């Protein structure tokens, strides 16, 4: 029969506290349940904005059809 190793009370209490502490994931679930979604820009705002800018630039720099026709002539 082996002699059980002795654990200092502080060491055991620290391990107990670690095991019983509220996990961060649980805390985050609680926080999210309390704080409603804060209004703000939608997640797609930046890509939609980029797309619109690209379209405007494309249109602004495109050669007009009459000019193309004149060049062809």
């Amino acid at each position, binding site marked *: 029969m082996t002699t*059980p*190793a*002795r*654990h*200092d*009370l*502080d060491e*055991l*209490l*620290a*391990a*107990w*506290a670690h*095991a*019983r*502490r*509220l996990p961060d994931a*649980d*805390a985050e679930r*609680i*926080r999210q*349940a*309390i*704080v*409603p979604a*804060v*209004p*703000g820009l939608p997640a797609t705002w930046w890509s939609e904005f980029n797309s619109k800018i690209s379209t405007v630039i494309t249109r602004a720099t495109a050669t007009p059809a009459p000019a193309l026709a004149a060049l062809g002539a």
Partner: protein
Amino acid sequence: MPPSRDDAAVFTRIFDQHRHAVHAYFLGRVADPELARDLVQETFLRAWRRLPEIAPLPEERQRAWIFTVARNLAIDSYRASAARKAAEEALRHHATTRETTVAGPHVHAELGERLAQLDAAIRRLPEDQRVILSMATAGGLTSREIGEALGEPAGTVRYRLSQARKQLAATLDLEDQP
């Protein structure tokens, strides 16, 4: 008026500052870990609703406000379940059945056994000692902070903590080196 990003940030700071202490308090007060989590959520939900009132307060007064709510919720919880005795009974029963969950799969078997013994011994402590011990260890609060939170003199907190440690050391045949 809908909440702003600033409101959410302020609340998150308060939540992060006090969540461990509040959870530790409820761990000491109620038998059921799920109930402890629910009570943490209810406490901070009330803090969120009163955010404009508590946000400007200094940290120790925020803690006092939050623990006033927590104490009232714990009392309501007892009343609702008519359960102080039942809770104590559940604590004892729970202590005998949660050996594996306390230790976790990666903890050495012998340490796990000692942790289960410690858990059972903590659950048999008088409630006032159990709450203070939980707040000091799991909550990481000083005796002064616990005293402020519970409305007790720091000397009383230190005395109860010392009594709890002596009881645990005696039960587990450990050296107590406060």
